[in-house]
């Protein structure tokens, strides 16, 4: 790989990774909301 190709690869990985991390965290957000709705804490003894 030439240096230019390496730089572009790094940029691509950076962009994809940042998007995917936000996607993951959004999915976890929905998951937490869903779990909390199904199993709310107030009903625990």
């Amino acid at each position, binding site marked *: 790989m030439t*240096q230019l190709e390496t730089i572009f690869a790094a940029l691509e990985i950076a962009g994809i990774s940042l998007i995917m991390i936000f996607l*993951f965290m959004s999915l976890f957000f929905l998951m937490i909301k869903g779990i909390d709705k199904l*199993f709310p804490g107030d009903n625990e003894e």
Partner: protein
Amino acid sequence: MEFADLFPALAGMTWKHLVMIFVGITLIYLAISKKYEPTLLLPMGFGAILVNIPFTSALTQIDQATGTEVIGALNVFFDAGIATEVFPLLIFVAIGAMIDFSPLFRNPTLLLFGAAAQFGIFLTMVLATLMGFDLREAASIGIIGAADGPTSIIVASRFAPQLLGPISVAAYSYMALVPIIQRPIVKLTTTKSERRIHMRMDANKKISNVALILFPISVTVLAGLIAPSSLALIGFLMFGNLIRTCGVLNSLSKSAQNELSNLVTLLLGITIASTMTAERFVQWETLMIICLGLIAFIFDTFGGVIFAKFLNLFRKEGNKFNPMVGACGISAFPMSARVIHQLGQEEDPTNYLLMPAISANVSGQIGSVIAGGLILTLVPLWG
């Protein structure tokens, strides 16, 4: 009989060995006197001294008399625990057992800060390629910004084992320096009125045990389906958390948090030092890595704060985020949360930011592991 035959270590000593012994002493000083991450820096410092005395039996050597290989203990530990990733994964079990995810359940929106504050990892990766490092080395350097020792060790040992020494030193040193690094960056990127924003929190909201049990299982399955290369990292962290939350394995949870954590940390530190030999460490590359690691931490903080300010554009007055809380999205738990809470108190003693800061900090622990998993998945696809 020559001097070199009688005293091979003295005869073989070079200025690079002396530099490394000085580095080792400095790490020990920082660990004891300044209390900078002593659990790792002290073993690493002592290990650096151990491996930089020429012909040390702590490392594999060729016996001069017989020509046979004499295996060193640190090489055995390295092959068994670092090359196989077993040590950092066991540390993840211990860390998972220490994490309480209920702050996240009270403030799930703050999960997004755990994503934004990983910005420094990827910026640094790009900068490292501009400085001439290849893709795998650049990824290993960028992951210093995860502010997560085991993740840094796993990525570096897989992609750039020759850089494991400086990367580990940088990662753990900067984690200890979070209070010094984050303060000026947060002050530079926020205004006084922003630092005074109060955040409303439902601190009394009860979280059910079932929810806390389902969370680690769900995260593991979801992350594994999307990025199976990340499963070792995320799975072991969530396994440790499940041991804690299940309620029926209290003795295992306590052992994971204490005995397991202490034993593996003890071996991890001194074993990493086996890569801190003079030939590998005393190079311009090491200085570049130390500088790039600092840049990663700085831009993690910057990324979190700026993202919080961006979100505030869409939020009403009275419901805005304190942008400083964005800086807590790094994985340095709980130091980052304490720093931001203190900064908030300095501006307004009635502003209690510890709860949202802890929530963001916990999300950072998940974010850093996800970032590590994504790097492990994506980098091999490009080269």
